């Protein structure tokens, strides 16, 4: 095959590949699973939901499980009485760890915290653009989130809810501020919320963050902070 010719079309070998697929699929493949003939509707009432690890029914159960998962993942999870309480905890972290700059994005919760932070802590706002180097040298990044997932102890962030793609991964400490109403049982619940909120106009970036960045590449020994944040703090307010 001459690559010069094959690149004549900006879409490449689209028709040839689709043709080969259609041809290949003429014979039916055996099924090794016990599924019904038609695929079950995989939406809100995903049929697999009940096979995953159980989550309690009440908000209290959700919070207890999220806390338990956080501990196992080495996420710092803390319930705070209010935005002011959350700001106080961040100020304490800043003092303890000697932070100079914190990066954050505009938002109802983040703004409420920003105005309560000590004046000695410089703030980098990413909303109207930032330089990569400046964000990289920040000590922490503060973001809101879409939801908290009890079953796995995960935080769902998106480009629209959490200050873009880099804020939650480039600084060495990621702080999430969330409200209790944002807790969901499982990933299905998180996808459900996203579908309701964005209805087809999804952000270009959605991520489930489950604990601080980690690797086990060297002798399968766990090390935190491989490339992303070494620490993850989740602050939950009523």
């Amino acid at each position, binding site marked *: 095959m001459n690559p010069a010719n094959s690149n004549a079309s900006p879409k490449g070998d689209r028709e040839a590949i689709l043709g080969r*697929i259609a041809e290949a699929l003429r014979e039916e493949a055996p099924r090794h*699973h016990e*599924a019904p003939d038609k695929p079950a509707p995989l939406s809100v009432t995903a049929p697999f939901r009940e096979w995953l690890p159980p989550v309690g029914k009440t908000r209290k159960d959700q919070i207890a499980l999220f806390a338990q998962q956080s501990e196992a993942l080495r996420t710092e999870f803390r319930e705070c009485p209010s935005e002011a309480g959350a700001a106080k905890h961040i100020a304490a972290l800043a003092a303890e760890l000697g932070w100079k700059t914190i990066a954050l994005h505009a938002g109802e919760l983040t703004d409420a915290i920003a105005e309560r932070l000590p004046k000695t802590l410089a703030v980098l706002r990413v909303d109207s653009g930032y330089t990569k180097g400046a964000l990289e040298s920040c000590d922490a990044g503060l973001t809101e989130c879409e939801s908290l997932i009890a079953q796995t102890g995960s935080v769902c962030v998106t480009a629209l809810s959490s200050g873009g793609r880099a804020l939650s991964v480039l600084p060495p400490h990621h702080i999430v501020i969330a409200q209790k109403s944002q807790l969901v049982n*499982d*990933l299905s619940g998180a996808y459900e919320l996203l579908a309701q909120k964005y209805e087809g106009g999804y952000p*270009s970036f959605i991520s489930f963050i489950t604990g601080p960045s*980690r690797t086990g590449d060297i002798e399968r020994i766990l090390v935190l902070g491989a490339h992303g944040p070494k620490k993850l703090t989740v602050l939950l307010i009523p």
Partner: protein
Amino acid sequence: MISTQEPQDQFQEDADRTTADEPRRAAVRKALGNYKIARGKTENAFTSWPHARDAAAAIKYEGVNHLDRYLREFEEKFTARGGKVYWASSAAQAREYILRLARERDVKSIVKSKAMTSEEIHLNDALEKDGYHVIESDLGEFIQQLKHEPPYHFVFPCMHLKRDEISALFERELGTAKTDSPEELTMIARRFLRQHYINADMGISGGNFIVAETGMISITENEGNARLTTALPKIHVALVGIEKIVPKLADLALLLPMLATAGTGQQLTCYNSMYGGPRQPGEIDGPEEFHVVLLDNHRTRLLADAEQRDALHCIRCGACLNVCPIFKNIGGHAYGTTYQGPIGSVITPHFRGLQDWKHLSGASSLCGACTEACPVKIDIHHHLLQNRRNAVAEKKVWWERLIWFGFRHLMKRPWAYKMAIRLAPLGQMLHPLVLGTAADPVQPWTKTRDFPEAATQSFHDWWQERKAAGK
């Protein structure tokens, strides 16, 4: 590093060498022992793992068996959000597209997150030949790149290396101080790579799932290197096999936990990210361009084999390698393939030729541990048998036919069979004459083991004798 040796000879030679490497085998065994414990714990937390497997297999079945429909849907949705889709029939086409893009955009520096597809098409070699500086950002891949060695395992690329070897490698290649702390070694890589993310103008990734419904690529990782690779450079290219399709976004609510459980024993890996296009209006950052290269490279050949089509359900968790007695003993490099272990032995003959790669299907005890471990219910060990059958049907081996011819005649004639049994001890008496030489007909066995001694009395004779004695 392309060897001119026949794949089968290379396999035999490497497997002989690696099985004799006791310390290496012990290290691999230890790592995989830890995996087994972690996975067992996570799997047991499921209300029903078998049902979850069924559901996961059903999702992949739906996607793979309507591949054309779902790929079209993906293309439509993804393109509507400003993404570009390129369909590559072959490795050469995929390479050429990415190279051309790099040239046209005047790219200077490229950062890569883990992508087995890029190993498959030898992308780094092609980019480097054209003068581009490419850096692997996944810790394991980074180490393998410094070592100029392909990944040992497609999920744990450097699981065969010990910390002192990695420390020595960093000392030599990066000029860092000696250390025996995995944490310090990880931090060396972190510091080294940080500036590369910031300077790179192109980020290349793979993809774990293609979501048709919403036009997204989903990437699973632990380190955050893929997130940085897809957040900072102005161009993002994802090189993804066409079989990675899933119909709906919410399907991932099952597949992401299944992948983590089977892959590493985690409930969920640290970052599971879905990318639906380049930076959208109203967003703060993200790449200006997002190209998805859909790679066929003989996948449609496997698709056409209905019997083995489910091998395309594979989500590359690596579980079948982790439980395989062959993998544990010969290690990842002996296979000589991009995809190692049982699943690699199934698919490689389809991708690179049955006659050249059929020997991999023989490197199996058919214990079925791989099939059992597979989260999407691929019938792996039966596919190995089918490969053996297909290879013989396609091309008969003269000496195998001769042996079967002889065996058939012997078994059909009791007198000849009895005679052969009587002669066996005699044959064994002559065995020492050739033992240890190339003339020994059972040399592959006697190289490492004693040959079992033939009984002086056959079962048949013993039975007759017993009957005669009236017992």
